[in-house]
């Protein structure tokens, strides 16, 4: 029996080490190794997917002693919440590396960093040990800092520093919460399964732990008012950095919200549920309005992320507040599917914006215009992704958001005002499409080349999955549902 999860987890790291150790490799070799490794990782993730889950709890668990004296071990495994995110990571990193394969500026360090990020992403989603989770969570931060600082745009140093300080400051409270959970356990252990099965903290201690976790995850998600690092980081990050940041790293926050906050301090979360719900609603609506006000295409997409992540917060809060297990399952199904969909759709959007920027050297919607005539394929794909993002039925966000709103309506009807966000986002994207792609083509954009094979290869798989998830969400939902339906809080 192969240790499938560990293989998938450490393959990218092995690829990164290989690239670093090769003496003077050409850019071609580096990108070849990068794409090959990511493809193999995707094979691993797909095999994990086919292996499936046995039961509602964690499956495919692999354990190895690490520090038995303090009850820390190398433990990895997946359940219905993490498995879709592992698959998402494997897909996103592959397309990101395909897209990046034209890069010639220090490709060695770049590809190695991306592969390192892939290991940390899969590690964060599969870790079943408190320390291990934190290790992956933090290393991802460091790698992303170097990615933005090394390959970002004009003002990258400042944005990278802000991102680093913000999220490091944010993630330290989680360390405290993990220590609290550890010391509160009857038998000191960092086993997350034990923390979930029998939440170790109660009363005020649980509430403090929850507050600490909420701070950490609110920064990472990001929720208003802790979101200010996100637009800066996104605008300055290289395209691949933005794609990974939005599609994968924001999910660390929402995944942690479910895995840690909801599952390990359920009673405290129920007490604080209304507050969390309010933050979710505010984030969703604020994100939508802020997106509407942007003229920079990349900033616009960044703000829609805040809106979409707001829905996830709402879904998780509703799951904590409701007393009806079937409603809870619907809310969590929606929340987890929303994470998956957002990864695909926003990943595609950032790729497409990156492609526009590479051609026009501008992201200002006012300067673009009429691009549909010169680059029709790019234009149509962008429109498809934008429609998916605004929640059009038969595309990925629709089933997710629908379930979240349904559960909200049945639990806290007032919170359904959050639906307002959809209308504003629709307006935002329609405006963006009109200003960027419709109308008269400006003189300087004539002769702009349409998508190359490499670019198509990067973006089309994401849109195919977006449609597949929208039309027949069951292939993902069945996996998610196996865990959420049995979630006892």
């Amino acid at each position, binding site marked *: 029996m192969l240790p499938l999860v560990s293989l998938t987890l450490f393959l990218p790291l092995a690829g990164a080490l290989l690239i670093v150790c090769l003496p003077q490799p050409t850019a071609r070799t580096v990108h070849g190794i990068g794409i090959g490794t990511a493809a193999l990782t995707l094979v691993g993730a797909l095999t994990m997917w086919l292996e499936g889950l046995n039961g509602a709890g964690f499956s495919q668990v692999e354990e190895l002693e690490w*520090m038995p004296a*303090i009850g820390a071990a190398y433990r990895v495994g997946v359940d219905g919440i993490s498995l879709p995110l592992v698959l998402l990571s494997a897909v996103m990193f592959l397309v990101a590396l395909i897209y990046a394969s034209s890069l010639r500026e220090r490709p060695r*360090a770049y590809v190695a960093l991306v592969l390192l990020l892939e290991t940390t992403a899969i590690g964060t989603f599969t870790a079943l040990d408190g320390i291990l989770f934190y*290790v992956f969570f*933090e290393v991802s931060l460091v790698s992303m800092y*170097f990615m933005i*600082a090394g390959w970002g745009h004009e003002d990258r140093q400042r944005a990278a520093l802000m991102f680093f300080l913000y999220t490091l400051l944010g993630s*330290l409270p989680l360390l*405290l919460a993990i220590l609290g959970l550890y010391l509160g356990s009857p038998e000191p252990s960092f086993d997350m399964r034990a923390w979930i099965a029998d939440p170790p903290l109660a009363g005020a201690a649980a509430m403090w732990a929850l507050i600490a976790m909420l701070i950490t995850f609110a920064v990472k998600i990001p929720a208003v008012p802790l979101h200010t690092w996100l637009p800066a980081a996104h605008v300055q990050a290289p395209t691949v950095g933005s794609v990974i940041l939005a599609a994968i790293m924001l999910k660390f926050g929402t995944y942690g919200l479910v895995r840690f906050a909801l599952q390990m301090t359920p009673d405290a979360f129920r007490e604080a549920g209304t507050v969390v719900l309010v933050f979710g609603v505010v984030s969703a609506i604020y994100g939508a309005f802020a997106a509407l006000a942007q003229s920079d295409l990349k900033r616009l997409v960044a703000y829609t992320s805040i809106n979409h992540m707001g829905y996830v917060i709402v879904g998780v809060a509703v799951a904590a507040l409701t007393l009806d297990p079937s409603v809870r399952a619907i809310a969590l199904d929606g929340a987890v599917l929303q994470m998956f969909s957002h990864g695909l759709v926003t990943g595609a959007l950032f790729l497409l914006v990156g492609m526009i920027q590479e051609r026009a050297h501008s992201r200002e919607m006012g300067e673009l215009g009429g691009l549909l005539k010169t680059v029709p394929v790019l234009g149509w794909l962008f429109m498809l992704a934008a429609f998916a993002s605004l929640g059009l039925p038969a595309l990925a966000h629709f089933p997710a958001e629908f379930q979240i709103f349904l559960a909200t309506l049945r639990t806290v009807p007032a919170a359904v005002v959050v639906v307002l966000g959809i209308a504003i986002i629709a307006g935002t994207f329609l405006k963006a499409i009109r200003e960027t792609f419709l109308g008269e083509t400006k003189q300087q954009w004539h002769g702009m080349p349409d998508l190359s094979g490499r670019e198509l290869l990067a973006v089309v798989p994401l849109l195919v999955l977006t449609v597949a998830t929208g039309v027949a969400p069951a292939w993902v939902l069945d996996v998610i549902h196996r865990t959420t339906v049995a979630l006892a809080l």
Partner: protein
Amino acid sequence: MMARELTLLIPEIAVLLTAVGALIAEMLRRPRVALGVATLGLLIATGLTIPMIGTDTTVFGGTVRIDSLSIWAKLILLPATVLSLLLARNDIGGTVREGTVYSLMCLATFGALVLAAAGDTMFLVLGTLLASLATFALVAYRATDPATEAAMKFFVFASVAGAVMIFGLSYWFGATGSTLLSDLARVEAMPLAGVLGLVAVLVGLGYKASLVPFHFWAPDAYEGAPLSVAAYLSVVPKVGALFALTQVVRDLPVDSGWPAVIAGLAVLSMTYGYLAALVQDNVIRLLAYSSIAQSGYFLLGIVAVGSSELALPSIILFAGAYAAMNLGAFAVTAVTGRTLNDFTGLGRARPMLGIAMVIFLLSLVGIPPLAGFVGKFLLFAAAIDVQLTWLAVVAIINSVLSLGVYLRIIVPMYRGGEAASVAVGKWPGVVVLTAFAATFIIGLAAQFFLMTPML
């Protein structure tokens, strides 16, 4: 009887013989032989210590302890001294009386080991003096004006702190009628004498460990001393003194209030150390203040001694981590130069050296999975375990502050274009590589430290 005691002290004896051997080689004007003797002798002493892991006993009537603290002190400080010796060869190689430096380093290490094994107040005094006397000479080695000034400050400070310590310890002797630390429980009958003694010990050991407010000598001494000596001072005598403090508080009754005092010192050291480091332009001074702050982190473990099982493992583990990452950072500085400007573009010009420096500095911040993280993580856990959550919170906030400090070195490394491609000497290269490996291995193989029977 005597044979048993001497057998248990073989590593210490080996260190002493090594110091004498190096000195003889220097007298014969054979500095390279002195270096060889010192390196080999200390490595042999390390090897002789390994079979003793797990021993827990005392010799000479309880005055010297052979326990996890003193054994790990040897396993950490002896290799750390070897690395300092190699840095010194790069630093002062070819100068007159070069061999004395090697010999003095061995002697000072002997003092630090005596401190870490102290089971008696007299050994605290002896260890402090041994470690101090040798280091005064080391700091003054260059015989330039700044070096002389630094050594003089260091000397005056050390003399006063030492005198205060001896004076205060006499109260403990008066109260308990014994110089043994294990008799300290009796001090409860006379609280005032207990407090006076504690203050005195904190002054004496606090100066050696450069804890705020006894740290004033440290930045000047580090700056004036040869770089290798600064690296050495920041690790060996400091860890020795902190281990000695651990030995003392193990026997002090908890309700005498010492944890509150130690917690206060921890907050002061961490916060002041990093705040001061934020405004330094000289990397040596920056690292000096950072090492003051790192001493504060040790106190998070010391505060939990006797009440939490995590205390000793966390202190020992962090000591190993600290030695590796701090020596590594100094070794990189030995290659580049002493000002922040010297680091501009280093990451591009020497990628591997750049990566190593980033790893050392991130480990000092406490980023996983590096050694510094595991050490700090356990220290935080120890503090929370004894209900000092607020102290852990302060430490965590300081970790963020520390990021600001170390990013001042990291950020310029990857900015700017043309950096003079510096040549990495043989010995600093070896030190960087060793420290780099240790920073990873200690982080990943922390279990090895935790496994040894503690207490």
